[in-house]
């Protein structure tokens, strides 16, 4: 990783690669009910749950794909892309907005620099 010149590019490539690698293992994830679901079953309030008003990639199963493992992995890949894209766009926008109106103390040190 150190051989890549741009550490930011390395971070993004390696980070997204790790996330995608994890999604490849998603078919092996435990299918037991999770903490809240188990409690809801044991304490008999699971029936209070209502179905979602619409379904896109419901339950992490990509639609129109017959193979369950492939459908799960595809949903993971799609999710990694969507989540990374949304978060990156939001963070980038926030950062741009913030740097357009820099804080006054930041603006002041634009003058001649004394070397440390």
């Amino acid at each position, binding site marked *: 990783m150190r051989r890549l010149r741009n550490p930011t590019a390395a971070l993004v490539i390696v980070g997204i690669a790790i996330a995608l690698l994890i999604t490849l293992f998603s078919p092996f994830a435990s299918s037991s*009910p999770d903490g809240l679901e188990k409690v809801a079953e044991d304490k008999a309030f699971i029936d209070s749950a*209502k179905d979602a008003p619409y379904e896109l*990639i419901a339950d992490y199963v990509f639609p129109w794909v017959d193979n369950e493992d492939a459908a799960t992995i595809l949903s993971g890949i799609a999710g990694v892309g969507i989540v990374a894209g949304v978060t990156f766009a*939001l963070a980038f926008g926030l950062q741009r907005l913030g740097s357009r109106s820099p804080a006054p103390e930041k603006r002041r040190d634009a003058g001649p620099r004394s070397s440390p």
Partner: protein
Amino acid sequence: MAYINPVSLPAIEPPAMHIPDGFVSAPVAAIGYVVAGVALAIAVRQTNRNLQEKLVPLMGVMAAFIFAAQMMNFPVAGGTSGHMLGAALATMLLGPWAAMIVIACVVGVQALVFQDGGLAALGTNVFNMGVVAVLVSYVLYWPVATFGNGRRLLHYGAGFAAAWASVQVAALLASFELALSGTSPLQVALPAMMGVHAFIGVGEGLITVAAMAFIAATRRDLLHLPLRKEIPLETS
């Protein structure tokens, strides 16, 4: 739950950790939206003011990692599974405000695209996991990050504690919300939720420490709270 809907593929049980619609009443859901909204507005204001440029790509990567990690349900005691929350890890790498935004993005996409967690319950879920879990992680981790002199074991211990506690507090809040909604009485929901999530929190802690160790070995510079000056993680 998968058996209820005959159209869905029967073998894969939906790993729906987040609160679905119907579990929280309308007033609880509304309060969740308001409190989560206020917290996120503060987070946006804070990050808007002093978001370091280098954190922007890290936020996207962190969100992608947390999403993927949340798909990996691991088995815990008694036929139950759990999955990572990621609030503690995000807080360590990004600071609390950026971490809140990252978790909110993940939980938001899960609700809107993957029907994991209800739409009405989205505010409540963001409040539990994205706001309070992050704040608890921050409170438990920052003393070590600030005064720990980069001692590895201390960092890992605090990281584990923050991760475990963040899951516990999210479960605690969910129990209160279930009780307030009239879904399950507190004396029933609270011990059950805390008990199960005590085990899930151990998994959270182990994954968090493993991720910290990986980052310490590859990109040590990322592992500090950006609210403070650089605290290099070094064995002193």
